[in-house]
């Protein structure tokens, strides 16, 4: 039954997931083209110096890419449920409502994570083309908090969309937004090497928290 719910979420979201995927691929194609251009007009040793000593992040414009992806997928998944109270359709399925909600959220997380992993692969491959492997590994470590922020952005969107009351929506947005920003504290490479695991672990609390707005939806008095 839960696999059926995954099937439903996929059908609902696949177009937007595809759009997000194309967007992500597009950004990395641009990264490749941009780097190639840079290495054509500049001396490679200067670019390496900027990257390794100065700390220039040549891939910095992918910083918010997965956040955008998370929001797209979250909105595509949950906005249709909220329009016309279509969420009731899902709530009437012969599945425990909490399991149903968690299953939906896991489906979305998976969608974001797949794109995130693809981003990581593309990032590594492209950077390794122009820089030694240390540069590519560093890029991955640097991008890791941004990839996590994408998951948080998705969960924050789900949380906010499902909440029936407007004032609470703002509260959840503030919490998710504030948490998201915790992954963007540094401007140099690899700043999160030692600290990432803590906010990343705590952010997993967003997963069980989605049960609350779904519960509040069922317990509305109007």
């Amino acid at each position, binding site marked *: 039954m839960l696999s059926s719910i995954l099937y439903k979420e996929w*059908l609902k979201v696949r177009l937007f997931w595809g759009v997000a995927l194309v967007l992500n691929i597009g950004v990395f194609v641009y990264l490749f083209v941009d780097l190639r251009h840079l290495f054509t007009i500049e001396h490679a040793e200067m670019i390496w110096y900027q990257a390794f000593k100065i700390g220039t992040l040549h891939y910095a414009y992918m910083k918010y890419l997965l956040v955008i992806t998370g929001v797209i997928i979250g909105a595509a998944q949950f906005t249709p449920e909220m329009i016309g109270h279509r969420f*009731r*359709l899902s*709530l009437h*399925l012969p599945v425990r409502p909490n399991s149903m909600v968690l299953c939906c959220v896991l489906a979305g997380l998976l969608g974001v994570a797949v794109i995130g992993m693809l981003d990581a692969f593309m990032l590594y491959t492209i950077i390794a083309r122009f820089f030694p492997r240390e540069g590519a590994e560093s890029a991955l470590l640097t991008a890791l908090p941004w990839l996590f922020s994408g998951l948080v952005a998705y969960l924050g969107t789900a949380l906010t969309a499902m909440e029936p009351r407007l004032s609470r929506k703002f509260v959840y947005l503030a919490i998710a937004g504030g948490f998201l920003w915790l992954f963007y504290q540094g401007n140099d490479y690899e700043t999160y090497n030692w600290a990432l695991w803590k906010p990343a672990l705590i952010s997993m609390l967003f997963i069980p928290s989605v049960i609350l707005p779904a519960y509040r939806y069922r317990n509305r*008095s109007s």
Partner: protein
Amino acid sequence: MENVIEVENLTHCYGKRVIHENLSFTVPRGSIFGLLGKNGVGKTTLIKILMGFLRPVSGRCRVLGEDSHNLSPAARSKIGLLFEGHLAYEFMSIAQIEKFYSAHYPSWNRDLYYGLVDRLDLPYDHKIKNMSCGQRSQVVLGLIFAQEPELMILDDYSMGLDAGYRRLFLEYLSEYVNDGTKTVFVTSHIVQDLENLVNEVMFLDRGGEVLQTSLDEFMIGFKQFRFKRNGSANTLHRDDVIRNLDISGDNVSVYSFRPMTEVGAHLAEMGIETAGLEQVPMTLEDAFIGLTGKY
């Protein structure tokens, strides 16, 4: 006889507006229960409460023996629910939505679904969002029949359906309730359809007023009387004998649960001439309008 739905002292308000007040009723197994009332009296609200999508201010509701606010997956699998507006997953196609729902219900009858849906003569990959209102309704009703639920709750099933399909649907429904173990709880704007279908009715009125009775008793008990007024009947008003009245030119119709003699005497007492007082036979729709009034 076991009750499939039990409602006890249900009260619900939207802000200061009272929708239901100490509403109590039961729906026995095997009955076909019609819930009638004008727009806005709380029919859909009641269904939302019964299905656990809304928490009432006070009162108790039980469906299939379980607290309506905490229906188990097992109970939900026995309830076929048609939402007002014929809500459906519009991003799915005819085939996809069947595939999705069939996985959730063990006694899924695929033939029933396609039996109804094939009549649309649409390809199976046709998306529901690209269908007309009526076409969507057919798909949704097909899904409910295929589920073969013990309890069917249909909130305004007739929306968007053409006359032909409505007839077909009623045939399916009659077939469905034939064995006496299935229960139907239905609302409809087209009151006439229900006349040949339901055996219990409940009328909801604004402010929480309720009348529950068997259809037969209602049709026998509730009468329309007509007479011509000769300038009088200006003082005519509703009371405990005259349930409702309708004055159109010189023609006056009064509605009452009392016999004609009692009504005639009551009118005479009020000083109203009732020349040619006669009982007028009513259909269910006439009786419904007579009870609740025209707008």
